[in-house]
């Protein structure tokens, strides 16, 4: 009985480069590492274009990685052939951002869930109908909804169907890619609550992608903050929220540090746009927008500092933020 259990998923040095049309290289994800312990939720946070979706899809081998490892239950998924990966497919599921294009418009809900049940080798026949009804009720829908088409549902309801599909195969791990950001604000909380409940009920392990920290705070045990394809800071939520040691995280938290002896904190929103991943800045990718940037930041990619208690930060000036 070792006190430190191996994480369910451990991503190490994940990279994904895309070839852009003109032959240039998009560095969508560079050297990303994090791990997900069994039964916990890890938040993956960053602005649009920071590579969150790419990271999630790559881990599930929905797109092929350019480098790194994703050790899931002791096996590096990236070392598996397409065939071998098949056996892992139903253990790893994904919930999508867009509730409209995530359901085949030509399929009824029972067929959509049925496809997932087929994947799980769930027998056909009367038991299946009950299972579909059960799945629908798990996500707060009615069993009568089974014979309807996706267009008959609201965005929030469709998102629940997407969640039911992911749960149908009883996965060990779920990537939830901004599952509420396309929904009406009034519905967001309901779906978030549902996800929180389901996480506890089924002891799910989850990578929860979001573009702002507030959504993640309530749901996540750990947080990974990404910027322009790289991890800026990661660690237990408590630490990252209360004692962030990275200027970018602090900016996301809307309280940027002012290097002044009174240590007064002031709201400094982020200025400017994210640079293009076709041509990321040298050294620290955040330096073009960092309020603390110094010339040295352009020289090297900041090494990841381990601050203890699984708190990691990639900033050469992190000590000044302590």
């Amino acid at each position, binding site marked *: 009985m070792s006190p430190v259990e191996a994480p369910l998923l451990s991503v190490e040095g994940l990279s994904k480069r895309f070839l852009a049309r003109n032959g240039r290289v998009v560095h969508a994800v560079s050297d990303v590492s994090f791990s997900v312990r069994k039964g916990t939720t890890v938040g993956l946070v960053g602005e649009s274009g920071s590579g969150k979706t790419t990271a999630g*899809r790559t881990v*599930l081998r*929905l797109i092929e990685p350019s480098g790194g490892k994703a050790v899931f239950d002791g096996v590096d998924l990236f070392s598996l052939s397409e065939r071998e990966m*098949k056996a892992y*497919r*139903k253990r*790893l*599921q*994904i919930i*999508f*951002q*867009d509730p*409209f*294009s*995530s*359901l*085949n*418009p*030509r*399929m009824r809900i029972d067929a959509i869930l049925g*496809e*997932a049940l*087929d*994947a799980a080798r769930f027998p056909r026949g009367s038991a299946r109908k009950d299972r579909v009804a059960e799945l629908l009720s798990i996500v707060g829908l009615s069993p009568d909804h089974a014979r309807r*088409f*996706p*267009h008959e549902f609201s965005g929030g309801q469709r998102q629940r169907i*997407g969640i039911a*599909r992911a749960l149908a*195969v009883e996965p060990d791990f779920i990537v939830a890619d901004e599952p509420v950001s396309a929904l009406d604000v009034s519905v967001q909380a309901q779906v978030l609550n549902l996800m929180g409940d389901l996480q506890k009920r089924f002891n799910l392990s989850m990578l929860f992608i979001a573009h702002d920290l507030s959504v993640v705070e309530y749901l996540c045990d750990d947080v990974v903050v990404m910027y322009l394809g790289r991890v800026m800071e990661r660690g237990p939520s408590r630490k990252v929220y209360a004692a962030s040691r990275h200027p970018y995280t602090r900016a996301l938290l809307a309280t940027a540090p002012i290097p002044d002896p009174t240590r007064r904190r002031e709201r400094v929103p982020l200025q400017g746009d994210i640079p293009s991943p076709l041509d990321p800045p040298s050294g620290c990718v955040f330096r073009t927008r960092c309020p603390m940037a110094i010339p040295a930041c352009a020289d090297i990619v900041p090494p990841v500092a381990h601050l203890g208690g699984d708190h990691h930060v990639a900033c050469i000036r992190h000590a000044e933020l302590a």
Partner: protein
Amino acid sequence: MAATAGAGMAREPNLLMRIASRPTALIGLIIVTIVIVLSVLAPLIAPYAPGQIAVRFRLQGPSLAHLMGTDELGRDVFSRVLHSGRTSLGVGFAVVIFASLIGVTLGLVAGFFRRFDAPVSRLIDAMMAFPDILLAIALVAALGPSATNVVIALGIVYAPRLARVVRASTLVIRELPYVEAARALGVPTPVILVRHVLRNVTSPLLVQATFIFANAILAEAGLSFLGVGISPDIPTWGTMISVGRQFLDQAPWIMWFPGSAIILTVLSLQLLGDGLRDFLDPRLAKDV
């Protein structure tokens, strides 16, 4: 962009009712239906057997006994137009089926598998560079003139158009999250191609098939008229015109009526196709 494509394809639960709300498409649909019904029921409706020769009554103008007159052998033109419709529509329909088999397969493969896209697309472009009728003539000349070979030739001629439409839609659908969801579940690729991709290209496919149906009827007539198509012994609208041409001065009705049948059918198919296209996502139809 992907999101709106998905939503666009979602809104077409009742195609028939939507067609009915468009006057021109509705007219097209009604005429096409009438033409098909008349042709199918030709043996019941036609007052004479199509091959019934009555030399005594040859080259007679339209009358009560012969609504569309008689031809050079005294055969009833009305009865022959009805029977010819069966062949002409049958050829058109067979062309659509054959072209779809080739075109859908090529389009799905080119659109879904990146590594096949370049070679297949080049083949499609090369075939489309030839004028339709010239390619058809060349193919029939190579295969030999028979109804089957006309179908094969025209199927090959029209397949690239379908392939392009299917490829364009497949490129969009391939990237949609519901396809990714199926991949995440480990659904086999052939099943994904049929269940998720093909099922969502049926609408643009239907539009294109309607146009091809019209074009095939016209092209069959053209080939027959040029004497490189179906044998003149088999009555089609095209062969009727081809033979009737020789009697244009004395008995123009021999040509008029099959000619009108072609024009009516082709125009109404075009109206129907235009109407169908309007219901669909314009981006998916832009290649049509």
